[in-house]
């Protein structure tokens, strides 16, 4: 019994970490008023660059850093379009999703002789486990949640960032540089999403393939909304989605339990819908979320 609980708990953390990274990215960006639907594409690109770098140079930490930079690169496009070009942020995010997944598979085929999968990374070159057999990325993700919480609610920068997301004009009038903060937030968001992708491709599994990210970024996006745009909330939501994946893995290994894994996989999504229906109707979204701000 204890074994089972520990198994579910540790598998939950393993599957949640990528979602937590990307969701924190979403929280950062959206708290300053830039919607980031492109998390999916940034995660995919991060997962590919992380796996490719690790398999080429043999060091997972360099791979992880490269993955963050890959996400950041795509985020730069999104930031420029959203901030300087007053773009429709949802449309730009959708574009980033096509670009991120397209570029990943394209580059994979070019670099690895037409294969859509990166060569498997040997165990000793993967992100190592830290404590209790959990990958270092799990602790990194939890640390990131803690750090983001402190940053947004306990430092002098937090209120500034949130002011930019609530009322950019007022923020600018008291001398806050709206453009600068939005750039920083979107770039940080891409970096986090990139880390999230790599925490799948070089820790949970050992290679990139096109189906690896399929949908994870959108679930992270849902975790942001479900978590009411707060780091802790997003983390709990990500843990819920991770737990459901863990439960499916656990039940799959139990001959005695006869529940369809497909039905089980459906539950967290239905549960989320149900919770949202009964949640407070008042939206918790930053007021200027998705609205471009133009200086005079």
């Amino acid at each position, binding site marked *: 019994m204890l074994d089972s609980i520990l198994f579910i708990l540790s598998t939950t953390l393993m599957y949640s970490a990528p979602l937590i990274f990307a969701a924190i990215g979403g929280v950062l960006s959206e708290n300053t008023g830039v919607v980031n*639907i492109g998390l999916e*594409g940034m995660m995919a690109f991060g997962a590919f660059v992380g796996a490719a770098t690790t398999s080429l140079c043999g060091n997972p930490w360099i791979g992880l850093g490269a993955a963050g930079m890959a996400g950041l690169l795509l985020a730069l*496009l999104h930031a420029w*379009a959203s901030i300087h*070009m*007053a*773009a*429709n*942020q*949802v*449309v*730009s995010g*959708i*574009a*980033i*999703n*096509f*670009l*991120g*997944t*397209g*570029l990943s*598979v*394209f*580059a994979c*085929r*070019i670099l690895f002789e*037409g294969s859509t999968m990166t060569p498997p990374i040997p165990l000793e070159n993967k992100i190592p486990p830290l404590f209790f057999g959990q990958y270092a990325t799990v602790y990194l993700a939890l640390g990131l949640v803690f750090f983001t919480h402190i940053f947004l609610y306990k430092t002098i920068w937090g209120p500034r960032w949130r002011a930019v997301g609530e009322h950019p004009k007022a923020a600018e009038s008291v001398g806050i540089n709206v453009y600068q903060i939005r750039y920083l937030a979107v770039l940080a968001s891409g970096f986090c999403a990139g880390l999230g992708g790599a925490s799948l491709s070089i820790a949970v599994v050992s290679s990139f393939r*096109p*189906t690896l990210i*399929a*949908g994870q970024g*959108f*679930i992270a*996006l*849902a975790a942001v*909304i*479900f978590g009411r745009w707060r780091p802790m909330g997003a983390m709990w939501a990500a843990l819920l989605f991770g737990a459901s994946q863990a439960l499916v893995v656990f039940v799959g290994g139990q001959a005695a339990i006869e529940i*369809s894994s*497909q*039905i089980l*996989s*459906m539950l967290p*999504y*239905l549960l*989320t*819908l149900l919770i*949202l*229906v009964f949640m407070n*109707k008042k*939206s918790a979204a930053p007021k200027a979320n998705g609205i471009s701000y133009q200086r005079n």
Partner: protein
Amino acid sequence: MPNSSYEKLTATFFSIVAGILVGGLVLKIAGLPVGEAYLVMFNSMFSRANYVAHIIVKSTPLILTGLSVAFAFRTGLFNIGAEGQFIIGATTAALAGYFLDLHPLLEIPLVLLLAVFVSALWGGIAGLLKAHFAVHEVISTIMLNWTAFYLQNYLVMLEGFRRPNSEASNSINVSASLTFFENWKYSDAGILWLEKHPLLADFLRAPVNGGIIIALLAAIFCYIILHKTSLGFSLRAVGHNADAAEYGGIKVKQKMTTSMLIAGALAGAAGATHVMGVSRNIAILASMEGYGFDGIAVALIGGSGAWGPILAGLFFGALKYSGSKLQAALEAPSEVIYIMIGVIVFFTAMPKLFGKISDLIKKRRAHAR
């Protein structure tokens, strides 16, 4: 979004040019022959009747999901759920097409209507949740997509529906097939006749089916609803300014639900025609197939009118088909087309850029004088 349709058309044109340029750049960086690659793609769009037929077949679901996303846009709703509605439509059509075996004249409309009806309800859930419980449609449709995904995987494997020893369902009955001349083109008489008409034979070698007619009818339906009925007027009013619409006496909540019902029906028709015209059955999904997500790009490139998605869908279908040829001819990754689509969508997101560029050109000209 730009105001006049002329401005919009030029912006779309330049976005497509940008997509082609960046696609070329990416191929160049990858060390592939750019000119040759584009020639292969161009040839694989127009050089044979068979290619044209394949493109029409590939475009059909994209036009329908594009119409779905575009329709919801008109009411100010972002339908990320076309993916799930497609799955529900496909699953319903596969179930009905297998278990019902009536005369084709009865079977085809019945299967199609069932699929469209069920997927409309599926889409309507998101509208209902938005209208009455303030659940953001982006999050509810993402949740519904995954629910649909696992629902299909569950239903496929049910005894009686599953094809034994496989990860797919049984095929639909021939009476539910939308494919043109399906029996005739492989019969002796058909083969003999087609030998004398090579162009038609080449065209019919692709799984040409009635889906495209349904897609065109759906576009006409969208046009009439949006522009010729009072329902369409109120839907557009809600999309334009929900508060003003409410003040003007329009039942905003009801309209949101209606809009999502129709969007669901359109994406469901995409899934149904795909099963009835091309795939014949459904199979275990390893990941999302992307028809709904591609539909978002189609709606964004084509604009949210009724005719834009047809052209954009054909364009996307042509790119997809020629991309697969690229892989065969030059071993160039077909994913370059997704990079192109991404760039095109990216540029359509920022009409301001084109305004800035044209201002710059005007200034230069004035300066030169």
